[in-house]
């Protein structure tokens, strides 16, 4: 018997009123919370779906349970449902889900939305379609095999009779739910939406200024808060004089937010909130606060000195991640060796919409309206901070003005909830200023990487040793720990080298550390693909030819158990044939063989697999008196099956800009525990005149869909650095480039 039930729901009783009374809703779901958990789920069980409903008026309502921050996911996943359902896209209405475990993982992070939910969405669509077919067949008293779904109708093929979907809603609700192994899917040749460039559902709202982001949310009677926080992370408030602040017109009161209890996780940092009747008044009042802080041990944090600590952590043996052959024996043979160190600094997310949330605490429950990548984490965090149950937290998800990982961390939502409780249940909007966003980010970790290779007489490595050190993400402060991110481009290298060992050293975090678009792939790819370029240069060989040689025979690279996102069991094992194909394709597309570097023009290449996708990138640079421009980028993408090609291209165009910004100019530094940067005047990001023209080619394959939001970023920094070397002979081993060429 199937676990699924069909529920006729009341307007208020289900999905917070998304569906009307009398709608057909496929209720209940069980999906793995994480990919790691997938192995423990009974695969023979049917895990149905809460993602689709049919209204008696014929409207198909599809629930978007992942957050929209610009990837087009609010369009792409519903396209998959609509395709299997044979729904008319014009009669599809997309509704954003609140946070709820019944949807499975909602953490829109790790480039996993299509990877994890392509199949569940197909199942949802196919289930509804088959129940509609059964309902029509029963009404006509004909075999279901004589009926077919086509464009929002069920057709009885022999007689030409038709029912519209709306007419069948009541009857379909009484049909048995097909089991998972009974589901029939369309052949890909019959896809009507998958693989097509459908305008994203929010486009017109965005173009007319009507789209609602977190910062646009409002609730009746809402007040506004701006929060002064200790400039040193982990510091505590000793006292505050708020007399002048309260005199500012529009300011209503101040309120204290308690500091976090370690580990900081997603708790509020703590501080003094100024509450006002508009955002500006709150910000003005805050400037008049006179707080005194107990700074604590974080006040000695200096990122320049820390850089050397990281380097020293790579001078000793670390925790072994991957160990193939015998690296030490290979080095002991006295072969020629090459070694190099690489460094990537702290980075900030600086998403255009800073963290913002509206929350209301009423009768022991919280309602939040916010731009979040993870509404379930909002539930969990708010519940923990307020000491209530996560089921008593309702999180409505707006559009996100960028995320890049920052908005998976809902400290700002907890701040709003804490303040609303203190204010007796008034809804409170917390708006982070850009200065707050830059200074109190969950920074991308600085990373030091040491690489050493033993080389044969042809310059090909026979042994490869990699040692990395970086502080842990979202853990405790001031305690050295391992990082556990080796699976992101450090241990999972595709090269055919008999002896490989990668290690990770311990480092302590002194500010909040979090993941940023492509996470550890940023430093790892920079080091690994710069290093192989150095080896190719030593061997005086063409880069593409050298990389193809280094890939060796096509094979599946087994690395044993690995941790972290971006690593999955088969069918997502690292397939070097796909790496090779991406490399060959980008060489062809960019005209690599005919490109001549030198005299200030250079071409650089990197091929990197991350988030299960194989990406090869060629960058052209022009270097003139230390000034670097990037006229052109060629990127080849093998992300398996692609649902929305235009949005995938857009992700890689954007990743080229994001990656070039990281490579060229972005850097966060800390002195005396204070972040030295504060806004876009000193935290540098790419602007239009610096942005490359990126040519994206998608290699269409039948492989399962893989991630696209992040994997365009990692190849950029090494490809740029390699291009600069080709242009000038100068090797870039530390980012940002700007500082190195100054």
């Amino acid at each position, binding site marked *: 018997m199937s676990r699924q039930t069909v529920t006729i729901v009341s307007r208020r009783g289900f999905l917070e009123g998304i569906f009307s009374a009398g709608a057909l809703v496929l209720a209940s779901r069980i999906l793995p919370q994480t990919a790691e958990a997938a192995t423990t789920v009974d695969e023979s069980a049917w895990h149905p779906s809460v993602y689709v409903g049919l209204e008696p008026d014929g409207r198909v309502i599809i629930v978007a349970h992942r957050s*929209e*921050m*610009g990837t087009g996911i609010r369009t792409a996943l519903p396209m998959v449902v609509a395709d299997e359902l044979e729904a008319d896209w014009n009669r599809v209405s997309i509704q954003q889900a609140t946070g709820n475990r019944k949807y499975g993982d909602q953490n829109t992070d790790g480039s996993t939305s299509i990877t994890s939910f392509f199949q569940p969405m197909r199942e949802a669509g196919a289930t509804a379609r088959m129940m509609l077919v059964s309902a029509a067949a029963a009404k006509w008293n004909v075999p279901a095999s004589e009926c077919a779904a086509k464009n929002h109708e069920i057709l009885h093929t022999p007689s030409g009779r038709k029912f519209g979907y709306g007419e069948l809603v009541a009857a379909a609700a009484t049909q048995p739910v097909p089991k998972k192994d009974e589901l029939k899917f369309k052949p890909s040749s019959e896809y009507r939406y998958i693989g097509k*460039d459908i*305008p*994203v559902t*929010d*486009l*017109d709202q*965005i*173009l*007319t*200024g*009507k*789209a*609602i*982001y977190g*910062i*646009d949310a*409002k609730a009746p009677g809402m007040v506004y808060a701006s929060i002064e926080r200790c400039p040193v992370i982990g510091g505590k408030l000793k006292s505050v004089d708020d007399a002048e602040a309260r005199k500012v*017109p*529009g300011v209503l009161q101040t309120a204290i937010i308690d500091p976090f209890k370690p580990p900081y996780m997603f708790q509020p940092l703590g501080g003094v909130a100024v509450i006002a009747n*508009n*955002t*500006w*008044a709150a910000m003005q009042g805050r400037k008049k606060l006179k707080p005194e802080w107990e700074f604590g041990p974080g006040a000695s944090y200096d990122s320049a000195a820390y850089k050397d600590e990281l380097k020293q952590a790579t001078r000793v043996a670390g925790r072994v991640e991957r160990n193939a052959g015998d690296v030490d024996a290979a080095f002991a043979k006295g072969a020629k060796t090459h070694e190099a160190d690489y460094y990537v600094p702290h980075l900030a997310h*600086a*998403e*255009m*919409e*800073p963290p913002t949330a509206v929350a209301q605490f009423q009768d022991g429950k919280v309602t939040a309206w916010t731009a979040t990548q993870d509404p379930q984490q909002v539930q969990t965090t708010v519940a923990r901070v307020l000491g209530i149950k996560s089921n008593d937290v309702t999180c409505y998800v707006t*559009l*996100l*003005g*960028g995320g890049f990982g920052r908005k998976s961390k809902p400290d700002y939502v907890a701040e709003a909830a804490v303040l609303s409780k203190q204010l007796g249940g008034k809804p409170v909007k917390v*708006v982070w*200023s*850009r*200065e707050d966003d830059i200074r109190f980010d969950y920074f991308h970790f600085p990373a030091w990487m040491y690489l050493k290779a033993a080389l044969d007489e042809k310059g090909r490595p026979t042994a490869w040793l990699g040692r990395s050190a970086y502080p842990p993400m979202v853990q405790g402060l001031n305690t050295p720990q391992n990082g556990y991110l080796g699976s992101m481009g450090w241990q999972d290298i595709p090269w055919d080298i008999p002896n490989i060992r990668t290690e990770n050293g311990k480092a302590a975090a002194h500010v909040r550390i979090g993941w940023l678009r492509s996470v550890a792939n940023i430093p790892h790819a920079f080091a690994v693909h710069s290093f192989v370029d150095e080896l190719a240069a030593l061997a005086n060989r063409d880069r593409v030819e050298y990389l193809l040689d280094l890939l060796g025979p096509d094979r599946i690279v087994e690395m044993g158990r690995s941790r972290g996102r971006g690593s999955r069991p088969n069918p997502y094992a690292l397939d070097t044939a796909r790496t090779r194909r991406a490399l060959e394709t980008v060489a062809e597309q960019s005209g690599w063989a005919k490109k001549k570097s030198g005299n200030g023009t250079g071409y650089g290449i990197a091929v990197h697999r991350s988030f299960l996708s194989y990406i090869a990138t060629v960058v052209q640079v022009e270097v003139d008196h230390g000034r670097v421009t990037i006229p052109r980028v060629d990127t080849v993408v093998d992300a398996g099956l692609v649902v929305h090609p*235009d949005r995938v291209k*857009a*992700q890689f*165009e*954007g*990743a*080229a*800009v*994001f990656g070039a910004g990281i490579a060229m100019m972005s850097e966060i530094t800390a002195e005396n525990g204070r972040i030295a940067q504060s*806004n*876009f*005047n000193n935290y540098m*990001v*790419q*602007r*239009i*005149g610096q*942005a*490359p*023209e*990126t040519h994206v080619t998608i290699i269409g394959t039948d492989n399962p869909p893989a991630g696209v939001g992040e994997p365009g970023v990692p190849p950029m920094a090494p490809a740029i650095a390699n291009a600069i070397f080709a242009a000038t002979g100068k090797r870039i081993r530390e980012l940002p480039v700007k500082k190195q060429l100054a």
Partner: protein
Amino acid sequence: MIRLKVNGSARQFDGEPDMPLLWYLRDVIELTGTKYGCGIAQCGACTVHIDGKAARACITPMKEVAGKSVVTIEGLSVKGDHPVQRAWRELNVPQCGYCQSGQMMQAAALLKEKPKPTDKDIYDVMSGNICRCGTYQRIRAAVKLAANSRNHARPATGTADQNGGRV
């Protein structure tokens, strides 16, 4: 009392004269299409038109817009069909979309000044508008597409502009 026009409608404001126009638009009259991004005129997310010229609402105090006409993204066109909006739609420019109100307002002002902008014109005028999603190459293409459609549309329609001549 400060009197001004917003998207063609007369408005009065008797609050703090130093309040930036941005927060008046967003918090007082609830036109939230104009976005906050930096507060110091570094990112362009808050770009509006004041008497037809692009301006950063985040550093423009209310006292400076007394007697002036302000146009926001909500008023750029009645039907969302300003040549810039059409070009942005045609090329699917937005990703997250947050900066795009400011980008489009800046682009509309650019095209008013320079109906046929060069790449350098586009870089010079649009470089104050940050997009962290990195939609720049589509913005560049869309500005040119809008320029072409405007240049063709004008003689055909015989009207000054798509939005009643405000821009």
